[in-house]
């Protein structure tokens, strides 16, 4: 039997979420609270099932795919249905070495996020939103139709908007609107770029695969659509993705959104949603406009460098733990841009692996922040001292997460950073001083924050004032499980990065060769 697993993974969670939301919508709050546990269980089971399907796909139990041989612009599990015939819009799904790690990551993070926020209030609404977010994110990654891609791109905003708005912190209204408006503004400009491109094509199609074939055919002999046009379209498309990534100077929505978002929202936001930006860059502007990419190579490098340095320096000045982690995300996303701008297969693979590794490590950081907030009712770095004594679990998790994030060898982040450094050195030589410097700054802010929260104080430590004399708790079991899982995967991909790195490597090398770029 031929089952379209990818479409199911998109549609089922969204339908389930709508069903669950409608189911409880007419109830009064007290009656709805009774549904929290069953709804959570339903969401958890669905997300586990999705994770199982994605894993079985990877292991070859579903379909028999040689994941490490997927060349650029070929897709597995490809299915296509007519959607709006009149406009030539189809529902086309498929995965390749670029998108499959992201799909798998999304399905991994969904159950983990649900575990980490097991006791989130108003769960009957929260967990369905989580499902909707997961379905929409997978939709973005598997969409091979431009229209479908855009629909899911925007659809991810809605559950996240409500998550920030309903479960967020004090300034959540501001943060949620800023988040929505930044992304929406960038994406409508991207949409105009996409449509302009559509009408300039020889054979108008929304299908990304056909677009790439068409573009590369023209790019091989000349410049598809002309260099001037290609540059403008490249900028319009990149703008949408750079804001999502986010890169300086469009990054200011991210700290606000993260600080205000609930733990689960932050985990998904940092883990997967930011990667949509990087994914989109590879999928559309880079695949379609290699000539424009070469033109803008240096500018992209500069944007990446500024994000990297700026993010790190701002981190140094933060007293809010979550804000610090958020800026460190900006910094890490800068690494992805550096990888792209290196124009080396190695650099691109580093960018892809950074997307993946950061997708596992940053949820851990935000889970730590969430636990911190949850148990100490404060996010100030100075609020808790001597955590190692009061809350050994949290202290250990925090230490692990921080170490992973600053790139300790044998953990996933290190692999990406090492690859990047090598590629960057090949491409830009002594410019490597800047990212190198940033590594030192990163170590500084992480170590400093750890020193102030985990160790300082020692025997004489008083419980933080924000607890008002209550006993100091350690983290819940559910939080412990989530941290353990994330830590396990961080180590797994640190020791055995080739699990996904091989297919990423195949993708980048074939892409570079296909596009006629770089060292290939």
């Amino acid at each position, binding site marked *: 039997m031929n089952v379209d697993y990818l479409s199911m993974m998109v549609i089922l969670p969204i339908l389930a979420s709508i069903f669950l939301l409608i189911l409880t919508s007419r109830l009064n709050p007290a009656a709805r609270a009774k549904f929290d546990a069953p709804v959570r269980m339903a969401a958890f089971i669905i997300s586990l099932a999705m994770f199982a399907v994605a894993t079985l796909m990877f292991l070859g139990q579903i379909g028999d795919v040689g994941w490490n041989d997927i060349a650029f612009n070929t897709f597995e599990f490809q299915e296509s249905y007519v959607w709006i015939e009149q406009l030539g819009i189809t529902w086309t799904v498929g995965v390749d070495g670029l998108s499959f790690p992201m799909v798998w990551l999304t399905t991994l993070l969904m159950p983990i996020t649900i575990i980490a926020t097991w006791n989130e209030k108003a769960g009957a609404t929260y967990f369905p939103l989580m499902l909707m977010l997961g379905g929409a994110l997978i939709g973005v990654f598997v969409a091979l139709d431009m229209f479908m891609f855009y629909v899911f791109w925007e659809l991810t905003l809605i559950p996240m908007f409500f998550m920030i708005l309903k479960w967020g912190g004090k300034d959540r209204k501001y943060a949620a609107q800023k988040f929505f408006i930044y992304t929406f503004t960038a994406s409508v400009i991207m949409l*105009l770029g996409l449509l302009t491109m559509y009408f*300039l094509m020889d054979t108008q199609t929304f299908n990304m695969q056909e677009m790439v074939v068409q573009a590369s055919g023209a790019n091989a002999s000349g410049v598809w659509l002309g260099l*001037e046009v290609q540059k403008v379209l490249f900028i319009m498309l990149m703008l949408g993705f750079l804001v999502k990534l986010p890169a300086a100077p469009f990054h200011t929505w991210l700290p606000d959104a993260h600080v205000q978002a609930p733990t689960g929202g932050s985990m998904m936001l940092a883990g997967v949603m930011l990667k949509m930006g990087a994914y989109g860059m590879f999928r559309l502007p880079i695949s379609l406009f290699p000539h424009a990419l070469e033109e803008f190579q240096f500018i992209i490098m500069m944007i990446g460098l500024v994000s990297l340095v700026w993010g790190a320096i701002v981190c140094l000045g933060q007293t809010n733990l979550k804000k610090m982690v958020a800026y460190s995300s900006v910094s890490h996303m800068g690494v992805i841009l550096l990888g792209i701008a290196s124009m080396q297969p190695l650099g691109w693979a580093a960018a892809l692996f950074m997307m993946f590794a950061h997708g596992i490590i940053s949820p851990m950081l935000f889970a730590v922040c969430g636990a911190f907030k949850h148990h100490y009712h404060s996010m100030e770095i100075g609020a808790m001292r001597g955590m190692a004594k009061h809350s050994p679990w949290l202290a250990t998790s925090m230490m692990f997460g921080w170490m992973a994030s600053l790139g300790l060898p044998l953990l996933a982040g290190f692999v990406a950073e090492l690859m990047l450094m090598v590629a960057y050195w090949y491409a830009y030589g002594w410019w490597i001083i800047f990212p190198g410097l940033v590594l030192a700054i990163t170590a500084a802010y992480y170590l400093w924050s750890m020193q102030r929260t985990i160790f300082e104080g020692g025997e004489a430590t008083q419980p933080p004032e924000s607890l008002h004399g209550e006993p100091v708790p350690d983290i819940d079991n559910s939080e412990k499980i989530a941290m353990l899982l994330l830590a396990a995967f961080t180590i797994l991909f640190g020791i055995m990065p080739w699990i996904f790195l091989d297919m990423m490597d195949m993708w980048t090398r074939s892409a570079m060769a296909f596009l006629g770029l770089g060292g290939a």
Partner: protein
Amino acid sequence: MSTENDFDMDMIETLGPEFTVFVGLLLIMVVPNLGNGTFRIPGTPIRLPWFLGGTRFKAVASPRLPGLLAVLTMALALFQVVWYLLDATPADGQDIMAGGVFIFKVNMFSRIFEAIFFAALLLAAIASLDRLPIGSQKSDDIDVLFNNRRQADFYILMLTSALGMSVVALAQDMFVLFVGLELASFSTYILVAFHKESRAGSEGGAKYFIVGSVASAVGLYGLSMLYLWAGSLQFHELAAHWEAQGATSLSMMALGFVLVGFAFKISAAPFHFAAPDAYSGANSPVAGVLATASKAMGMLGLMRVLLIITVPEATADGSAIWIGLLGILAAVTMTWGNIAALGSENPKRMLAYSSVAHAGYMLAALTAIGAWNWGLVDNAGVAMDVVVAALLFHMFVLVFFKLGAFLVLGVLEMEGGASRLSSLAGLGKREPLLAVAMFLFMISLAGVPPMAGFLSKLLVIMGIVEVATGTGSLSSIGDAHWVWWLALLMVINSAISMFYYLRIGVVMYFHEPEEGRKGPLASGASIRIAIALCAIGTVAFGLVGGELIDLCRDAAESLR
């Protein structure tokens, strides 16, 4: 193409929906007055029963009767129109002549506009069943007010405006079109002021009437000049004359004046000043009709004048002579509307300004049609069809989410006013489904997928970009026709509009309700049904809009 000259049974068949409305109108006037009244033959004691007046029969005394009649009438008329649309082909068309003059033409293009009008009026009529414009009175008094004779007046005016709009849709003569326009306009002037107990109602109505009359007068003056220029007001003769003579100073001036008249109807800047007052003074279903059906009527007039009469080979580069003017009007309208909406605290005014902004988007699409010959000479008609179809689709789905948004405010009005943003506060807790519907309408207005508003905006932008990119080989974006920049302005405006649409969502879900507005809202089954229909339409046409797009394309084709 058949031509009919005299009023006979065939014509009743051709003009079926219009006769339905007409009969419904008569019924609403007569049926509620049926009673045991008698007529005394003068000079004798003999009384003959003639069934009007006296004590009304029980069956017709129900205060809900006029409303039900109106709903049935509109539903039947809409059914007939849709029936026609599903059956017809673009080549179909029946002319109705009187004395050698073309009066009406029934084809897909006019019928799809009637579908828009009737759908909007039907939804508004359904929504009004539960309540009449009762000012700020509490819902307990509804029964008292139902006995008010104004009940019948309200629905009579709705049906006369439906009739007027149909005439505009069918008209083949500027004068006939103008008569229809005025019939519809006068009905809406009164409907706006129907809220006469409140100051806002009378003020809005008066302003709307005064500004509207001035605009009509200017338009009429333009018509007289057109007549002076061409010696006829028939569309086909005007078009022929334009083709023969091109633009002269007289015809240009006439055109300008006529445009003003229609620009007021679609509330394009700078003729939009009365709109926010009118919308906020009128009760919500009526405001919704103004923002959808009445606006579509204005667009229809503009399309007739700009696309039928002034054929666009008038300038050297093959674009229409009015394209520059219309482009500026579009840019100003969408930007002004959005910026004004940002600062308005009254949700109805906000929706009014958002409808100004939507008028700007539609004008941008019209501007693109004016450039249709640009680079696409062999393919002119098709490019025009694409944009016209996008416009039709946009106006059609706008009925659902624009009117729906007004109806949600209408539910709040039943409770005691919806003139402050804070009246929406806490709706998410009080009425989750209503709040979800409102949120869907808002993001649809903003153009977020997968709502119908996204698809319609996508179609409009696609139409503009298709025209702007011409034959498809540009050496730079600067070589595209300048209407491309209107598309850019449009997407930027969409982003700006996000601010105020989202704010509604934030207020609904995350502000505490106002004092005294805690529990669930007053019931109102019919308005909720109307809102549900709107919400279903908003989502359904966004997900599977293909059939409607086909229909709109056929209708656009029949315009040529």
